């Protein structure tokens, strides 16, 4: 039986759309995972020495112990927000002759190996190894590590018991906040108390068995709860959100393109991934702060140009690069309706321009960093409006990957192909180069003017360029229909 489950897992993993993505995406994803693993490993191995150096007076293990309480509570909060029980996977198995208890054990066992439980180990295990190496009591450290692992696993099951219950979440958050408050206002020394608890385990490792008891208890509770809920209308169900319709009739003033713009506004707001893109574009506003505040970049104007482009370009870049894949699910229908393709493209263009303008207005506080920075942002905004918006539309005609809007938002790379990597060159490097050349060899404000002029040129030639882009889309219509029709 178990081997059947393992085979299913294997196939699910290797046949997921994950692996059918372009090589570039795979490498990038692997890099991200590797980055986190290396970061945790480095902390685990180096943690002892760093702490020793920074706080020579105190014992590194005791220091870590005193903050573990916070780590555990924060872990629970992150889990609440992000971790989901992989319960939908068993839907096709429910009607097969397999005992329900087995299915539930399988789901729970599977959840034990989720990334949430693994990543922490990359810190704790090397940290423990270093401790033993440094002459700490081996059984003591092993007992401590055992307790940590059981607590991580307990948190895993506690999270499923809470099961997205807002009340429980509030309670945990309040506990965490009040602990921090108690500490900061010297009401109660939480850090010391937490530290004593874990220190005690180190001195008397047999008590680590309590961790196991907690784990067994929570596992059993979760098991019992889930066993009663393996029904399509309970655990194995998908939530249906009530639809809310906002009145968007003010858009009707835009005439022919209004239906598409209304549609896009709803698309953005009602799907997780697009919503993330939308909200992220406001985060990009702060991108400049990283660059403008640091001395190092003061002498590297092209890097400042780079940051300036991002400040106002967050939406155009993140949304624009996946045009028209956002509409891939209903692309066939759009293509059988009688409207001018131009209108469809125009609506996307308007959306990018309006959002860029809005972000530009919000970037006015950057005046604080001086008129030069602000001129740079202005030049960047004009470039984004004039050149990038049109270029993104053109680049979009090379998109051949379907995007399923129902899938989650953050870290979802569906729809990504080589196109997304290549377009960065004209979008970002080209204006940086132009700016650099003029700034270096002509000087003064010529760099800003040069970048802005390209944007203005784009605006002037817009209707000609749009015609060209439209032709490209119409030419590639059948290829797109075919590509978007395939399951992602």
């Amino acid at each position, binding site marked *: 039986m178990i081997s059947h489950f393992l085979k299913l897992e294997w196939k699910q993993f290797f046949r997921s759309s994950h692996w059918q993505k372009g090589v570039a995406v795979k490498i990038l994803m692997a890099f991200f995972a590797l980055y986190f693993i290396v970061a945790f490993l480095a902390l685990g191995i180096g943690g002892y020495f760093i702490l020793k150096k920074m706080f020579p007076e105190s014992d590194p293990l005791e220091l870590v112990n005193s903050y573990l309480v916070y780590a555990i509570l924060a872990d629970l909060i992150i889990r609440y927000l992000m971790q989901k029980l992989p319960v939908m996977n068993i839907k096709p198995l429910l009607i097969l002759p397999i005992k329900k208890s087995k299915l539930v054990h399988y789901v729970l066992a599977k959840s034990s190996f989720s990334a949430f439980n693994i990543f922490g180990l990359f810190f704790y295990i090397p940290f423990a190894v270093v401790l033993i190496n440094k002459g700490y009591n081996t059984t003591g450290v092993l007992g401590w590590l055992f307790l940590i692992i059981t607590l991580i696993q307990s948190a895993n099951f506690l999270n499923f018991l809470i099961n997205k219950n807002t009340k429980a979440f509030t309670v945990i958050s309040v506990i965490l906040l009040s602990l921090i408050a108690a500490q900061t206002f010297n009401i109660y020394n939480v850090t010391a108390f937490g530290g004593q608890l874990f220190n005690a385990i180190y001195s008397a490792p047999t008590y680590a068995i309590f961790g196991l008891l907690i784990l067994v208890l929570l596992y059993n509770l979760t098991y019992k709860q889930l066993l009663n809920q393996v029904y399509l209308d309970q655990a194995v169900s998908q939530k*249906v*959100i*009530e*639809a*809310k*319709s906002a009145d968007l009739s003010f858009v009707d003033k835009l005439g022919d393109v*209004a*239906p598409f713009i*209304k*549609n896009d506004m*709803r*698309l953005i707001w*009602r*799907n997780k991934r697009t919503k993330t893109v939308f909200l992220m574009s406001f985060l990009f506003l702060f991108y400049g702060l990283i660059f403008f505040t640091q001395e190092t970049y003061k002498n590297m104007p092209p890097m400042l140009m780079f940051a300036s482009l991002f400040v106002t370009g967050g939406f155009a870049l993140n949304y624009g690069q996946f045009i028209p894949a956002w509409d891939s*699910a*209903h*692309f*066939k*229908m759009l*293509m*059988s*309706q*009688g*409207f001018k393709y131009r209108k469809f493209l125009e609506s996307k263009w308007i959306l990018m321009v309006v959002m860029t303008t809005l972000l530009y207005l919000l970037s006015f506080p950057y005046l604080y960093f001086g008129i030069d920075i602000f001129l740079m942002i202005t030049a960047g905004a004009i470039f984004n409006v004039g050149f990038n918006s049109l270029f993104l539309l053109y680049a979009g005609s090379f998109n051949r990957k379907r995007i399923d*809007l*129902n899938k989650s938002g953050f870290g979802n790379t569906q729809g990504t192909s080589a196109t997304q990597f290549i377009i960065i060159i004209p979008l970002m490097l080209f204006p940086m180069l132009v700016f650099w050349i003029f700034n270096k060899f002509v000087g003064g404000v010529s760099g800003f003017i040069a970048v802005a002029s390209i944007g203005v040129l784009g605006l002037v030639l817009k209707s000609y360029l749009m015609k060209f882009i439209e032709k490209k889309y119409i030419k590639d219509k*059948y290829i797109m*229909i*075919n590509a978007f*029709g395939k399951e992602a």
Partner: protein
Amino acid sequence: MITIDTISKKYGTTEVLNVPSIEIPTGQSFGLVGNNGAGKTTLFNILLDLIRPTTGAIINHDIQVNSSEDWKQFTGSFIDESFLIGYLTAEEYFDFIADLRGMEKTEVTTFLAKFDEFFNDEIIGKKKYLRDLSKGNQKKAGIVAAMMGNPQVVILDEPFANLDPTTQIRLKKIIKELTENREVTVLISSHDLTHVTEVCERIVVLDKGNVVKDIITSKETLQELESYFAV
């Protein structure tokens, strides 16, 4: 009138469709029948210029579908759920299609009112996104959207599948009314021989991409089809 002229479609060396010639006069209710893989949906997709034929052309009311797009103004269609926009409510979807087809707001209201019975209170005012509706209800929304804007040609792929019996009967009535005045041409594909013989005055049977029967519907048609498919 729709003329299908020596349409064929090949993927590599496999030919999935080969139709020498079919003429569908205006106002005819035309049924397409065949087992899975017979080429019904491929033919409809070519008719809607969603797939390019390897050879041949389709002329829809004097317009060749892959050289001009003007046929879209008078052709309504529903092929599958991918014709719906999942994140819209049914009302918003109808408004969107109405906008594309140049219908006024008031027109939409009177148009939808005609389908009250067909919707059976399961579509309008439900506060649900189309993606959260059941398959049958999704189909209802799609079929009605295909009839928006007074199309002269209506193309429906498997309209009866997933509908409950009452709705199937109501749909048959709607299709019959549509072709009553001999102005609207309706093209339907179906696996249900009873429905298709009841609704369509002409039935073409496809098998592995080839036309094997082209029948004007009579009392004997159902029996003829049943004996053909009972292999």
